[in-house]
C-alpha cells in the first residue's frame, strides 16, 4: 500500500534521507521512529507531497506520487505534527471545505461530518471558529479532516503531541479501528510506549538511513537486546549517551 523506493532528500550538501526503501502492507500500522533530525519529518513531508524527493519513488495505493499526484493524494490522509488551520472558519465549515476539495458533496457529506465531529468529540464546538480552539482540539479536528474521504493510506506525524490522556486514548482507538478496516497507517512518533503498544512493525531511521525494521521480536533480535522494551532497543540501536546511561543504570 505504501512503497518508498530508494528515496533520498538532500538539502545542499546535507543528506536528510538516504536511499530509504520501505514497503507497508494494507491494514498495517507502521511505526517510524528515530532521534531528532534523523529524517522522519522529511520522509513524511515527501509522502504528503509537501517536499519533493531529490531521487527515488513514492507509491501510495498503487499511484506514483510524482506521476499521478492527484490520484495518489486522493488516497492519502495526512496529519501533520502542528495543526495549522484556517482560523477564521468554524469546525463545521472547515470539514465542509476539506470535503469540497476532495470532491465530496451532498447530504452524505453532512452526515459524515456529524459522525466525525462526534468521533473526535467536537460536536458541541462545531459552530465555533477554529481560532478559539486549543492545540488538542485543533489536532482532533485535523484527524477528522484526514478521515473525511476515507483514505486508504494515513500518514501521521507525531499524533500524540499536545493531546491529553483522553485524546490519546481516543486516537489509539481510532487508529486501531481504521487498520481493522484495512486502512494503512504510517506513523512517526517519539512516544515509544505508544509505538510498542500499537504498531505491527517498526522502522528506525538514523542519519537518513533505515537501520532497523520489523516487529518488536524482530527488532529485539536485531538489537541483540535481552530487554523486550522498545525504549531499550531504540537507544541501543541509535546509540549515543542515552544508551550508555541506561547501561550504567538500567533502573
Amino acid at each position: 500500500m505504501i512503497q518508498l523506493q530508494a528515496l533520498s532528500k538532500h538539502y545542499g550538501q546535507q543528506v536528510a534521507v538516504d536511499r530509504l526503501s520501505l514497503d507497508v502492507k494494507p491494514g498495517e500500522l507502521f511505526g517510524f521512529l528515530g532521534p531528532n533530525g534523523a529524517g522522519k519529518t522529511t520522509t513524511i513531508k515527501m509522502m504528503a507531497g509537501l517536499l519533493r524527493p531529490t531521487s527515488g519513488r513514492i507509491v501510495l495505493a498503487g499511484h506514483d506520487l510524482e506521476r499521478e499526484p492527484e490520484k495518489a493524494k486522493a488516497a492519502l490522509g495526512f496529519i501533520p505534527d502542528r495543526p495549522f488551520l484556517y482560523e477564521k472558519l468554524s469546525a463545521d465549515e472547515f470539514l465542509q471545505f476539506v470535503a469540497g476539495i476532495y470532491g465530496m458533496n451532498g447530504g452524505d457529506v453532512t452526515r459524515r461530518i456529524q459522525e466525525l465531529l462526534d468521533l473526535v468529540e467536537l460536536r458541541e464546538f462545531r459552530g465555533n471558529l477554529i481560532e478559539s480552539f486549543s492545540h488538542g482540539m485543533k489536532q482532533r479536528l485535523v484527524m477528522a479532516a484526514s478521515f473525511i474521504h476515507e483514505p486508504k493510506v494515513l500518514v501521521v506525524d507525531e499524533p500524540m503531541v499536545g493531546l491529553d490522556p483522553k485524546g490519546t486514548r481516543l486516537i489509539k482507538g481510532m487508529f486501531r479501528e481504521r487498520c481493522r478496516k484495512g486502512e494503512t497507517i504510517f506513523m512517526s512518533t517519539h512516544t515509544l510506549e505508544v509505538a510498542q503498544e500499537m504498531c505491527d512493525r517498526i522502522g528506525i531511521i538514523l542519519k537518513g538511513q533505515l537501520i532497523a525494521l520489523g516487529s518488536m521480536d524482530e527488532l529485539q533480535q536485531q538489537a541483540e537486546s535481552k530487554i523486550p522494551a522498545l525504549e531499550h532497543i531504540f537507544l541501543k540501536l541509535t546509540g549515543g549517551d542515552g544508551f550508555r546511561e541506561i547501561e550504567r543504570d538500567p533502573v
Partner: protein
Amino acid sequence: MRPEFTPRQIVHILTPSLFALRNRRRAADRVDFLRAALFGGITLLFSLGIFAGFYRVLVYIGQFSEFTAPLTQQILATVSMFLFTVLLASNVVTAYSTQYVSEDLSLLASSPVPLPALYGARLTLTLFQSSWMVLVFSFPVYLAFAVTSPAPFRFLLAVALILAPLLIIPAALGTMITTALISVFSARRVRELLMMVGALFVVLLVLLIRTQQPERLLNPSSIYDIGEFFSAFHAPASPLLPSTWATDLLAAGRQAEPFPWFLLFLLYSTAAAAVVLGCWQARALYRRGYSRAQEALPARFTTSPLVDRLLELAARPFELRFRSLLLKDLKSFLRDTTQWSQLFLLLALVVVYLYNFSVLPSNFTFATFYLQNLFSFLNLGLAGFVLSAVAVRFVFTAVSIEGRAFWIIRSSPLSLRDFLWSKFWTALPPLLILSQILTLVSNHFLGASRFMTVLASVSILFVCFGIVGIGVGMGAMFPRFRFENVTQIAGSTGGLLYMIVTTSFIAVVLFLEALPVYFYLSAQYRGDPLDRPLLVTSLSLLAVAALNVAAVILPLRWGQRRLAALEI
C-alpha cells in the same frame, strides 16, 4: 531599601527588540537596501511636498501682518491637535499588541520581572512603534514653521522641548485606555473594536482633508480660505489640553516671545504623572488583563449567519472545488477585521479619486475638446495604477494568505493549476467592477467623448485581466506564508516587484493605445471621417487583448511551477 526595579531592567527587557533590529540590518541583502532606498525616496518626496505646502501657506499668511499671528497660531493649534489625536489613536492600537498579544509576553509574564519594569519596557516599545512615522512626517511641517519664523532656532528649540512629553503623554494615555478596555471586554472584542474604530477614524480623516480641498492653499486667492480650511479641523482649544500648552509654547518660540515656562513644566509633569498613573493602573489591572487576553471567546462582530447564508447561496452555481475555495476565502476575508480596515481605506481611495474629478475647475468643461480627451486617455493610466495598488493588497496576497495552512492544499488532490485559477476568478469580478466605476464616472466628470469613454472602458476591462493574472502569478512566485499581518505580504519584495511590473504593463497598454487616440483626435480636429481611427483602434485593442492573455497565462504558469517546487 532596595528599589523594586531599576532602569537597567527596562533596558534589559528591550534588548531582544534592539538585537532583532540590529540583526535585521546585518542580514539585509541588496534587495532590502533597494527597497529601503525606494521607500526612503518616496518618504522624502512626500515630506518635501508637505514642507512646500506649509511653506507656501505660511509665506502667504506672512504678507498680511494683522492676520499673521492669529492665523499661524490657529494652524499650529490644528497641527498639534492633529498630531496628538493621531498619536493617541496609534498608541491605543499598538499597546494592544505590545502589551497583551505579543508572542514574547508569555516568557516575560512567567518570569520574575517586576511589573513596573515590564510596564516601562512595553511603554517604550509602544511609544517607538506608534510614534516614529508621525515624527517623520511632522518634521517637514515644523521645519516650514521654523524657516518662515522670525526666530527659527528658538522655534526649533521649542519643538525639541515639547517633543518628549508630547510623545510620552499619548503613549501613556493610549496604554491606559487599552488596559481599561481589556479589563472590561475580552482581548478579541477589543481588537475588533479597535480595528473598526481605527479604520473609520482614518477614512473620516482622509475624506475630511480631501473635501476641504487643500489644493486651494497652494493657490490661495483669499486669506479667508486658509482660515476656513483650518477651522474645519480645529477642535475647541481647551486650556487643559497638552496640545494647547504645546501650541502656546511653539507660538511663543516662533514669535521670539518669552517662553511660558509654566506650560513646559505642565507638559513634563503631566507626562511624568501619566507614566506613574499608567504604572499604578498596570499594577491593578495588567495581570488580569493579560490573563483575559489568553482567553479565546467566540467572535461576536465578525460572524453573521445571514451573511454566511447569502455567501453560500451566491456560491451555489459554481463547481464544487471552486465553490469550496471561494467560500473559504470569502468567509475568512469577511471575518478578519484587519481586512475591513483595508476595505474602508479602499472605499476612501475610490471616493477621493472620483471627488478629484468632480472638483476640477468649473471652467474645465469649456477647455478644448483635445484637452478633455487627452485627460481621459491619461486617466486610463491613473486608473490602472489605482487598480494595481488595490491589487497588490488584495490579489497579490491571495496565495500567501493561505498562510501556514497551505499544507492542506498541497497534500490534497486539488491541483495547483486549479488552485491558482480559482484565486484568479475569485479576484477578478470585484476588480472589474471597481475599474468600470473608476473610468466611467471619471470620464463623465471629465466630459470625455463617447469614443474615449468606450475605449477607456474596454481597455481597463482588458487591463484588469492582466493585473489579476500578474497578481496571482507573482503572488505564487513570491509567496510569504509566514506573516503577522497581511500588509507585510503586500509590502514584501515580491509586492514591490509586482507594482513595478504592473506599472510597466500599464505603460505598454497606454503606448499601444496612443496611436488610435492620436488618429481619433486628428480626425476630429480636421473633421475627417472616423473609419481609419476605428480600424486602428480595433487593431490596437486586439494587441491589448493579446498582451493581457499573455499577462494572465504566463504568470499563472510560472507561479504554478514555483509553487510546485516550493518546499513547505
